[in-house]
């Protein structure tokens, strides 16, 4: 479904050496797979995830999504992004719109759905995540956990083939983490291909088919949750896990 080949990304900050954040990433995420990315902060997890839908443009390497090289300059990236949902650490819900408008904006604007069809989908999704009674509220009236659930259904309304999560619970108060993780669990159980950057180790172990450990711009280790978490091969993985587990 998504294949990356030798993806490199550097950030150029004026007056400083370019920061080489991704140092050649080769990955293959297959249809239906749930992949969690763990690793120390600053290791390039977000950057890698954002390259997958070209929010960051890699300066070297290729990314194929459903067989199309989306790093190529003669494709229309918007078409492909419509098939890739993304959920951000800070929710990024649209404060100027109601819950319903947040959800139906993209399906209607991209002409995937009429307003009536989009409304129907939005209501079904809101029911599914327990937000239906908030449908006419603005996001300022929602808690963090509710905002993130809204952000998730906003992405789902586009009926994506893959979901990308960037630390979806890191900005939440502890008591709201559960409600968001439950929604994601539900989603992956329904077969949604997902790539999840997370610090929730228990969650990652429970839902993932595969875990990637990213450090210093490379994927230092990749394997099943049991392999990576119980029996890590790379000393850096061991070191990281010893700090975050227990």
């Amino acid at each position, binding site marked *: 479904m998504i294949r990356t080949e030798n993806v490199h990304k550097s950030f150029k900050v004026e007056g400083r050496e370019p920061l080489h954040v991704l140092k050649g990433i080769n990955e293959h995420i297959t249809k239906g797979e749930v992949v969690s990315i763990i690793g120390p902060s600053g290791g390039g997890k977000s950057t890698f995830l954002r390259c997958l839908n070209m*929010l960051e443009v890699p300066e070297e390497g290729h990314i194929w999504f459903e067989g199309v090289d989306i790093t190529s300059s003669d494709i229309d990236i*918007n*078409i492909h*992004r419509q098939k890739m*949902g993304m959920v951000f650490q800070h929710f990024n819900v*649209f404060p100027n719109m109601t819950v319903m408008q947040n959800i139906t904006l993209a399906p209607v*604007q991209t002409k995937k759905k009429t307003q009536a069809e989009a409304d129907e989908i939005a209501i079904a999704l809101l029911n599914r995540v327990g937000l239906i009674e908030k449908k006419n509220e603005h996001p300022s009236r929602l808690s963090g956990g509710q905002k993130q659930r809204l952000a998730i259904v906003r*992405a789902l309304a*586009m009926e994506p083939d893959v979901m990308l999560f960037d630390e979806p619970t890191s900005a939440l108060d502890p008591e709201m983490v559960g409600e968001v993780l439950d929604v994601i669990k539900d989603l992956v159980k329904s077969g949604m291909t997902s790539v999840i950057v997370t610090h929730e180790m228990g969650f990652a172990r429970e839902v993932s088919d595969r875990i990637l450990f990213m450090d210093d711009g490379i994927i230092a280790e990749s394997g099943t949750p049991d392999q990576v978490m119980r029996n890590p091969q790379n000393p850096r993985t061991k070191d990281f896990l010893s700090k975050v587990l227990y």
Partner: protein
Amino acid sequence: MSFSNVVRIFTKYWKVFLITGVSHTLLLSLITVVFGALLGLILCYMRMSFHKPLRAVSSFIVDLIRGTPMLLQVYVGYFLVPKLLPFKVSEFMAVSVAFSINSGCYLSEAFRSGIQAVDKGQMEAARSLGLTYSQAMKKVILPQALKNILPELGNEFVTITKDTSLASTFFIGDIMTSYLIVRGNTFLTFECLFIVAVIYYVINKILTFFLNRFERRLRVSD
């Protein structure tokens, strides 16, 4: 300066100050902000476009206006605008062109920072859903930027009511012109200055009062 003189002058000339002066000042300010806002939109659009020459032209104009004194621009407007236009223009119109251009340059920067003040995550979220840049701008960014921009328009109006006094040299009829006229008739400089100072101050207070109320309402509706 004597207070009785102030009263005497005001009773005799209040129409010049309050009717002619205030109406011209407010009208000139309104014209300036309306056309300034239009020009500001165009300049801001150019400045934020992906087309490099457009960006360069816009930033050159803005830079030029911000880098030269307003009084000089009023002079240039007064002498140049009538020469450039095929029909006859009043002094008032000529200087209002200068003020509008000046205002447009300041406002274009205010618009730009109002847009840039919208959280970057908003654009990213919109683009991640597959919206184009212009759809994201129109539906997500600009409606939020408007809340930052509207108070700036109000501020600009308040500032302009004072700045228009620069054009009184050309007897355009504003509040400061009324000072020049009445002083010419009475030779009581300080009394006349006192009167226009009070008028400017009161106008300013009234406008700021409404502006603050409006801003508070904007914030509540967030």
